[in-house]
């Protein structure tokens, strides 16, 4: 028998009558690293999301069970390491 998808889910989300507008971030560092990736995509890659997306797929595949925003952080670190020196 399979285990429940996410035990916390039924309590924290599915029982709520309205789910729209739910905050997507659990901690400030998560929204910060999200916005930092947006900044790099916009200002270092001219809006091209592909380089970051490729790093994100790599980071998620490398450690599938790592929390998502930590993979996101690793992906951004890897991308930033490829930026040309000033």
């Amino acid at each position: 028998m399979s285990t429940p998808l996410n035990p916390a889910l039924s309590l924290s989300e599915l029982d709520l009558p309205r789910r729209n507008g739910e905050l997507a971030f659990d901690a400030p560092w998560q929204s910060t690293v999200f916005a930092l990736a947006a900044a790099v995509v916009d200002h270092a890659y001219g809006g091209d999301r592909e380089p970051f997306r490729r790093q994100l797929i790599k980071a998620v595949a490398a450690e599938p069970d790592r929390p998502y925003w930590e993979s996101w952080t690793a992906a951004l670190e890897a991308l930033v390491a490829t930026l040309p020196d000033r």
Partner: protein
Amino acid sequence: MSEESHHPAAVSPIERRVAALEAMLTERGLVPGGFIDEITRRYESEIGPMNGAKVVARAWADPAYKKRLLTDGTAAVAELGFGGAEGDHMVVVANTAAIHNVIVCTLCSCYPWPVLGLPPAWYKDPPYRARMVREPRTVLAEMGCELPGDTEIRVWDSSAEVRYLVLPERPSGTEGMTEAELAALVTRDSMIGVARL
């Protein structure tokens, strides 16, 4: 002096890494002042799932719009002023009495941000991504979405090329409602396809 005073519990290793990234990127001039707050605010409020709810309500209220939406999702969504990053290639799939659609991204977390805001935490969980493809009926039931045995379930795998949005069925008893009232009925989860209305 206690050990804790040297290592404040408030700052975790991941927070340190993010702070280091922020400092380095700011120094390189890639993060304008106020940019982080502005981006966060926009994704959490303006760009949230209410955009998608407006699209769904319009499709329920206007059969011609529904037809355009199902034919060319990107253009029909743009008619309402939504689009941009991550919404370039929208494909809208309609639920019927016989067919239930659900979206997932098996590779990472591709998601129609302009219409649904930021993805919920579980959408990014490896178990959701893997199991929804393998055993959608079971996963949906675990999430509180029990479907009749003869309902066909279609799982759509989002990618950088195509972002899917589920058009839920219009609930019965809503015939006299305005578009705004209809939009208020639409939940994010119903547009991912893990809930029915």
